[in-house]
């Protein structure tokens, strides 16, 4: 079980609570977690990563275990503590704009 924390706007959009719990088949990676998240909440497609290129949107960051994982490969294993559910996988909207 993976725990995912969404930024406030995406929680509202998905009508999800503060933390989303996902079952991910196979290796827990950014891609597999986001695939599972979008399968549960189809309205989030295109809001975290581009519909076509599947690249992370520039003002969205991925944090876990106190580390910025945004620039890791989408197919790299997530930290064990995230994969086990001990620590959440954080989707964060950058502090920017007005």
């Amino acid at each position: 079980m993976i725990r995912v924390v969404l930024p406030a706007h995406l929680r509202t959009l998905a009508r999800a609570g503060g933390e989303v719990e996902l079952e991910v088949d196979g290796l827990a990676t950014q891609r597999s977690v986001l695939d599972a998240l979008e399968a549960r909440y189809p309205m989030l497609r295109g809001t975290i990563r581009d519909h076509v290129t599947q690249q992370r949107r520039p003002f969205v960051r991925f944090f876990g275990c106190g580390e910025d994982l945004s620039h890791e490969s989408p197919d790299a294993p997530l930290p064990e503590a995230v994969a086990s559910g001990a620590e959440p996988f954080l989707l964060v909207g950058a502090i920017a704009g007005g």
Partner: protein
Amino acid sequence: MSGVRVLVGTRKGAFILTSDGKREHWDIAGPYFGGWEMYHLKGSPADPNRLYASQSTGWFGQMIQLSNDGGRTWEPVGNKFVYDGVAGTHQWYDGTPHPWEFKRVWHLEPSLTDPDTVYAGVEDAGLFRSTDGGQTWRELPGLRGHGTGPRWQPGAGGMCLHTIILDPSDRQRIFIAISAAGAFRTDDGGETWLPINRGLRSEFLPDPVAEVGHCVHHVAMHQSRPGVLFMQKHWDVMRSDDAGDSWREVSGNLPTDFGFALDVHAHEPDTIYVVPIKSDSEHYPPEGKLRVYRSRTGGDEWEPLTRGLPQSDCYVNVLRDAMAVDSLDSCGVYFGTTGGQVYASSDAGDHWAPIVRDLPAVLSVEVQTLA
């Protein structure tokens, strides 16, 4: 009992203002989608309770929202806007080729007859259509593909397709406008397109009368007279009497011919409204006086409408999609400002009063006249 519903898109959410036919007392609902940029909301002429809304932010991209109860509740629908085939390039600000990139939906235009069919004008400029209530979107690629696309360039606000007009007398005919490419028309339901910019003159272009490249800000039409179009260009208010085949300037005695918003009286096809704005970079009303100008002669001769509008120290702008009219017997006229005011007149512009004063910057105003 008749009434009106005013759909207001702002930089930080949407608001819905409702009143009865007297238009004296207003209920204000919202913000909906607080914190998101709401470029446009519009109701289906075929089903007034069916509303579409464009919701976006720089963080999370584009959403389309749909309501089936007049805006009380909303559900997200499809947000996948992918250009057809190879997207190609247009001109960048420095004149170099730049790849077409989807950024946002500027304008949603529901079909006149089918609540599930809706058009979306997007940045970078393209026209999309959904026939399933916004669930899926397909580009009408003939517009970008007709040949002049590589010469289009963005205006200061981006290369946006901001105006979509469906001809009520000919379902195959659609007019659109792009900043800064110009106006275009299809006569075959969107398969093929013609630039309709003859008569426009833009001194910022190497060839001021070029086929494309004109910074058209807005175009409006009266439903009873679809061959007559009015245009607010970057500079110049223009008129066409032949469905865009040719244009002539009707700026007349306006204090400045620059502006964004323009609309046509609901019952008088030759009565039109603009809000003159000081150019080129100030983008606020001349002399700090917020004045709507009305022509009852289809242009050329204009009168300022000032009663109830601030006539000193006013430095707001009125954006291109931020003016609309209702179709009650005494035509109502509405506009929103970048200062967050929404002004209304229930007597065709003679008198004005703010419905609200302190919204976020207003991006768009649409009005539904309810039976």
